[in-house]
């Protein structure tokens, strides 16, 4: 299939929508399809060859903050030319209610259009007020996809109609291999955590308490924590004798994140709730690191009820210590969990997700002409 994808946000800025589009596009190309992505981008930025830059994003106040988007007559005519030249079988727009290229693409195109909504927003008065002006653009959408249940609710409220739920994929190949950070995991073993340090539902406090218990019995054991937040404040939650055995990295790049996962013997997801899927846990599974996770529903599901990772009672540091102890003492069990986790996470791979998206494409193109420019 020839697939045209419109991205509303600048390719130069890291973001969930952009990485979703990148991973989806690469998975579709891997499955043998032709993909072209139109996006705002910086002039001097190196771009993958499937990306068509439409100009530098313009900062503008929108929805209470500053959005970096592209709009206006010149952008519209660039999108029009891209559609004309692309001769796509299907047009896939992301976040069509953001005032940017996706909305413009809906506006200028005719033919099969699929839209994906990523963000969950409270029912927005603006969008309702602006409905009449958006209607002609948005009512051309033939198939809707939501990446989460919350996003689906937003979409139903804003655009009406229903949506297919297709969650984000995991780019498992990107996590499989990486060089550990220098000196890690070390002979005494290491346990790791990724996530916002201050967010209570991420559960770092529970891991710190469990680390205290474990470190007392294991002289060489170290802790590696990465994620946004005040590292010093977290370090001081540990008793003084333990502080030099914990390393707090702060926010890390995508690439470093993978290295962090490969730098520990056991990865811990101590979340107390608020996860609908547990993307970080799935990424750790893709890296092949044995996992200790709280037994919230999301982790129970992704870890196959404990067959692909050790579960402990949510919020209980002593039980976390017990589960981790079991893994540290039993290399055979760790190897077994790694194999099971790699097999389990394959179900969330982008290849699988891309096939589901393709199914949506195939449904909307049935009996339709290709994408053209609306008169």
């Amino acid at each position, binding site marked *: 299939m020839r697939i045209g994808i419109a991205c509303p946000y600048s390719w130069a800025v890291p973001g969930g929508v952009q990485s979703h589009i990148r991973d989806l596009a690469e998975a579709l190309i891997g499955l043998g399809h032709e993909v072209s992505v139109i996006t705002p981008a910086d002039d001097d930025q190196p771009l993958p060859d499937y990306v068509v830059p439409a100009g530098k994003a313009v900062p*503008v106040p929108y929805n209470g903050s500053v959005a970096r988007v592209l709009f*206006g007559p010149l952008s*519209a005519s660039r999108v029009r030319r891209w559609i004309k030249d692309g001769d796509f079988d299907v047009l896939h727009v992301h976040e069509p209610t953001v*005032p940017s290229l996706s909305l413009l693409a809906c506006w200028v195109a005719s033919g099969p259009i699929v839209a994906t909504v990523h963000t969950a927003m409270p029912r927005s008065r603006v969008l309702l007020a602006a409905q009449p002006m*958006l209607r002609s*653009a948005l009512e051309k959408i033939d198939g809707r996809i939501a990446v989460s249940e919350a996003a689906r609710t937003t979409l139903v409220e804003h655009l009406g109609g229903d949506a297919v739920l297709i969650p984000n994929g995991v780019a498992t190949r990107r996590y499989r291999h990486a060089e550990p950070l220098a000196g890690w995991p070390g002979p005494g073993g290491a346990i790791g955590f990724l996530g916002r340090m201050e967010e209570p539902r991420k559960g770092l406090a529970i891991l710190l308490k469990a680390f205290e218990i474990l470190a007392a019995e294991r002289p060489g054991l170290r802790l590696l924590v990465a994620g946004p937040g005040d590292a010093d404040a977290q370090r001081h939650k540990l008793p003084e004798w333990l502080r030099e055995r914990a390393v707090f990295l702060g926010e890390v790049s995508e690439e470093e994140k993978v290295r962090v996962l490969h730098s520990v013997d056991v990865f811990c997801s101590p979340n107390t709730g608020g996860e609908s899927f547990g993307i970080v846990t799935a990424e750790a599974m893709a890296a092949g690191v044995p996992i200790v996770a709280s037994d919230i529903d999301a982790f129970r599901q992704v870890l196959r009820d404990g067959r692909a990772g050790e579960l402990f009672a949510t919020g209980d540091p002593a039980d976390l210590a017990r589960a981790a102890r079991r893994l540290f003492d039993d290399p055979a069990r760790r190897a077994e969990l790694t194999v099971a986790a790699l097999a389990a996470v394959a179900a969330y791979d982008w290849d699988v997700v891309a096939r589901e998206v393709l199914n949506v494409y195939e449904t909307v193109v049935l009996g339709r002409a290709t994408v053209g420019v609306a008169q």
Partner: protein
Amino acid sequence: MWTLIVLVVLALVLWGFYISWRASRLDRLHNRAEAARTALDLAMVRRSSAAYELASSGLLDPATSLLLADAVRRAKDSGPAERDLAESDLTRALRAAFGQPGFRGEVEANDGAAELVGEVDAAAQQVFIARKFYNDVAARTMDARRRPLVRVFRLAGNAPQPEFFEMDDALPDGEGAGEHIP
């Protein structure tokens, strides 16, 4: 002796007249500040309406329409405390929209579009002027209220102290102006 008394009484009477003249001058300043503030409010309302009319005219691309409609809605819904911020955001949204390459040429090629765009231009200019005038009279009023005589005799009475209205109201003056948001 009598001459002296007459002179003192005369001086007191003249001074009384002077104070009452100062009081009525201050009163006039307050009234003018209030009128200027009303004019500024009206100008901002006119600008919002003009921007909304342009946004809903169907002459713009939907992305630009949505941006403008969002900014107008926020300006209209803002309480007194965040009014300056919301109106500044509307200014920035207008500047970003009007500053897009080819905006005027492309939009004004349509029937009736030149008038809608012209109305936004005029209203934006009016906001700019009205705010200048208001801040000017507000400054003079504040200055007058600070004088010792006014303070000692409480000539301002219960009239509220006018405050400066600070906002970004730089005009959307066409090509290339929409690139910067402070």
